[in-house]
């Protein structure tokens, strides 16, 4: 019975359209494609807003409050980096991979794994080390959404920063190895980004 239905459906699909012109069918698919793609990207962008990210109390009452005190939230030039600027890559492939990965966070929300400040604190290192591991793997692609070492003007940096950046570049370091715990409270835990990078490279 089921096979008969599938066969009929397949035959229908394979039968040339006699009622509508190729132009009508083609145009319909073209318009439908635009609507689908536009809708998909609009939905993706909606999940990248500050309002969306801080829509749940788990983020709003903890990391968001910490981030509000940092230079990425408020600064001299008025350029704000919101959650997605640092936690979601800009290019499509990496962005999709991150969005799929983030669907696990929806499960975390539903099951309430960090729904109290105490639970959040208990998980803070695990959450941070996951973000660090991801960033050392992608050469801090999220930082490089805005910051490019080759675009930096060393003369405009302090002597300390110039030395650190030159050393970091020579040692093949990635941004997060030094610039961690800058937007949120640094968690106490065994490994920082550099140690995680070494472990990942060793396949541990």
């Amino acid at each position, binding site marked *: 019975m089921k096979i008969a239905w599938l066969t009929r459906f397949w035959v229908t699909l394979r039968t040339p359209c006699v009622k509508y012109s190729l132009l009508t069918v083609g145009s319909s698919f073209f318009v439908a494609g635009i609507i689908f793609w536009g809708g998909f990207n609009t939905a993706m962008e909606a999940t990248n807003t500050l309002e969306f990210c801080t829509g749940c109390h788990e983020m709003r009452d903890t990391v968001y409050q910490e981030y509000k005190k940092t230079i990425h939230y408020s600064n001299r030039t008025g350029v704000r980096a919101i959650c997605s600027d640092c936690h979601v890559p800009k290019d499509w492939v990496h962005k999709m991979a991150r969005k799929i990965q983030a669907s696990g966070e929806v499960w975390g929300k539903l099951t309430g794994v960090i729904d109290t400040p105490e639970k959040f604190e208990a998980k803070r290192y695990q959450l941070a080390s996951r973000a660090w591991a991801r960033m050392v793997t992608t050469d801090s692609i999220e930082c490089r959404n805005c910051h490019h070492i080759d675009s930096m003007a060393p003369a405009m940096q302090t002597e300390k920063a110039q030395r650190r950046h030159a050393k970091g570049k020579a040692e093949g370091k990635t941004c997060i190895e030094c610039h961690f715990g800058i937007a949120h409270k640094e968690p*106490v835990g065994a490994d920082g980004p*550099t140690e995680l990078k070494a472990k990942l490279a060793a396949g541990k």
Partner: protein
Amino acid sequence: MALLEDSKCFKCHSVDKKKDGPAYKEVAAKYKGKPEAEAKLTKHVTQPSKVKIDGVEEDHGAVKIRSEARIKNLVQWILSR
């Protein structure tokens, strides 16, 4: 913690991880059981000094407040790591 953040101490120090400056846990371990610890550390965080990083001498910053209570709190926090 807030004073450490405001004074940009975390640029070079971490609580327990490797950065250019020693981790606060290392500092606490170094001063453990030493009666002069609090006085020495208070001087270190309030008066500009020089430190060596990768063989190069650099200025070590100082906290930008004069509240003795807050400085004492900061020093005790570091020593209790």
